[in-house]
């Protein structure tokens, strides 16, 4: 928050968009805002007007208030509210222009985070989570710990919490890995745990488990590459030498070795070289491509 305040102070001198004053965008913005906020207009027309000029949102306090009102109002059609959110978010990319509105925007997002519409909730919580907003993090965690309070499905909560992981989130993710409500929730829990150094042994086990889903093994390889890269290289080599392994995980293993392997050690590994040389002719198309890329890199 203090960082945001600093940015705000440094940008006050240029709060209004100069281009908007001088350029062509100024002239139609009044008309666009009037269509955007007019409940008697067709939904499509309003959505198109909102999409056309996101910078108009911050041209005046009145415009911003109008858009925030549309976003807040449960009476407004959801399409129009989502378009308003998208336009305000697009305007937020013009930080100097937007900075004066930011605190009110965040307050509105927190308010809308509990809206009855699931899609709107998800989008709003996503924006807040990427801003590492404490309110959103608490709500998401609460939902994981007590599903009755959940604002979004567990897989979404886990995905959003991974933006800024805290210890409580690791505990909740481990619980979901052990008792998954769905395959997607388990997958997202594993993604979140990829930032937890203590999870490396679990990922080693999942990677080598031939009964595990291909996607989970792929995530495990990726997590292991981050947590213990030398272990991944070890396992990737073993997977490649195992002729009973599945194509997908062999392709992932070969990609890991090609991309991140110790070049000298790999070049001196005659057994591995022979195996990959065979793969370029005998394996599935997917592996053949990877094998050729590997052999090109190592001058074979």
């Amino acid at each position: 928050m203090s960082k945001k305040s600093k940015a705000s102070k440094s940008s006050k001198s240029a709060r209004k968009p100069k281009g908007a004053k001088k350029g062509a965008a100024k002239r139609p913005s009044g008309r666009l805002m009037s269509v955007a906020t007019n409940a008697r207009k067709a939904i499509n027309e309003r959505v198109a007007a909102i999409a056309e000029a996101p910078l108009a949102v911050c041209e005046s306090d009145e415009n911003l208030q109008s858009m925030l009102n549309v976003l807040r109002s449960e009476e407004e059609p959801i399409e129009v509210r989502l378009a308003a959110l998208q336009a305000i978010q697009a305007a937020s990319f013009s930080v100097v222009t937007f900075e004066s509105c930011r605190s009110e925007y965040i307050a509105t997002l927190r308010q809308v985070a509990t809206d009855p519409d699931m899609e709107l909730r998800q989008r709003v919580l996503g924006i807040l989570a990427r801003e590492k907003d404490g309110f959103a993090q608490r709500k998401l965690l609460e939902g994981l710990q007590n599903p009755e309070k959940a604002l979004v499905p567990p897989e979404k909560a886990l995905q959003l919490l991974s933006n800024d992981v805290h210890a409580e989130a690791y505990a909740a993710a481990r619980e979901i890995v052990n008792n998954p409500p769905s395959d997607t929730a388990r997958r997202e829990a594993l993604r979140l745990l990829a930032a937890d150094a203590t999870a490396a042994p679990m990922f080693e086990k999942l990677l080598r488990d031939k009964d595990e889903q291909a996607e989970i093994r792929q995530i495990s390889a990726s997590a292991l590459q981050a947590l213990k890269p030398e272990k991944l290289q070890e396992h990737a080599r073993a997977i490649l030498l195992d002729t009973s392994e599945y194509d997908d995980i062999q392709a992932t293993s070969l990609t890991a070795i090609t991309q991140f392997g110790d070049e000298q050690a790999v070049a001196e590994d005659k057994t591995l070289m022979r195996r990959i040389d065979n793969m370029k002719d005998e394996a599935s198309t997917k592996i053949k491509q990877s094998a050729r890329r590997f052999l090109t890199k190592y001058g074979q």
Partner: protein
Amino acid sequence: MNVEFQINNSVSPSARFVSWVPSPCRIRMTNPSGATTPTVTIRITSTSAATAGAVVFRKGTTGLFSTSLSLSVPTNGTSVPFFIAGKFGRPSVNNGDVRIDARAGTTLVGSVKIMVRVRKNANNLTNGERDRLVAAFAQLNNQGAGRFADFRNMHTSVSSPQAHGAPGFLPWHRAYLLDLERELQLIDPSVALPYWRFDQPAPKIFTLEFFGVSDALGTVQFSPTNPLQFWRTDGVQGINRRPFFNTSAAPPGLRTEAQTFALGTQYPAFRTMEGNPHGSAHTSFGGSISSISSAARDPLFFLLHCNVDRLWAKWQRQNGRFNPALAASYDSNPGNPIGHNLPDTMWPWNGIIGPPRPPTAPGGAMASSPCVSAPGPQPRVRDSLDYQGSVNAVSRMGFDYDDVPFA
């Protein structure tokens, strides 16, 4: 008899890349054996496959280009200047797919392989170009432990006022992309940053083999052969990107290229494109790319911005807006914040920290290029404008777009 080529006035193989902008080159005799006169007429031509790059030549800084050139080359080793440019519409596909030959009479006395390297529409890349790009990105990031982290840290909420919401938006991002592209080229010199033309369908970008396919949750899936499956930034595993549009079509509501150009012929009007299409392209997705603080986690971000830069480049050419001395080329309002005035150096390359600049300056100076000297290690806002060196030849920055010819 032998001659030596100096592409971009350098004998280094790393300098053997040209774009649409004429590259200064030299040729000199390294072995005059067999020569009977003080100078020898050397004919320079190029050879390439129909699908590969093509180049043209000329003797000086002005005049017409031709497909061959005859030069009088002294036998005493003194070099002779000439220029090579990529033939517009014929970019290379692979490194060294254009061969330049030098002949004395019918005898081949020297040759060199070069590449016409330009930024292309990502939807039209060959599989080879695509694979080299994703491999270079993956290596630059190296699971969040590589040099890419600096680029992540350059584009955050704290640093945002240096880059957004004021006239320096376009110049800053031009420098940012160039810095990243040069780092990618250190890994694979055949890579040029492609652009996502967001006002047209680009289904080939959103595939398992390229920038991934998003599932309903917004988790991006990759093929097991794609090194981006190992992508990780800020401790976040993978990429979160949820398109709010059918990725086989263009996102709705974005200004088209023509509508963007119609914003006006003066820079203050044109730069309102920061809202739509730029901001709107970001928010045509949920996920990292839709928030300023996390946008650079997604490598697609750089293709989006490459298109924003291409639009500026094309607008500059249409309206003659390369010269910083021309008022319409920029918005020199006295109220511009620091970092947004033409003479200002740009953060983080200038290394200046503390208010009103951000508290840190990640990444150090701008990466250098073996082909060109501009924009220098600490670029100013004004240095970003004349990217082709059409106002001042030394300003050329070494990149071009496939659909924007030399001015």
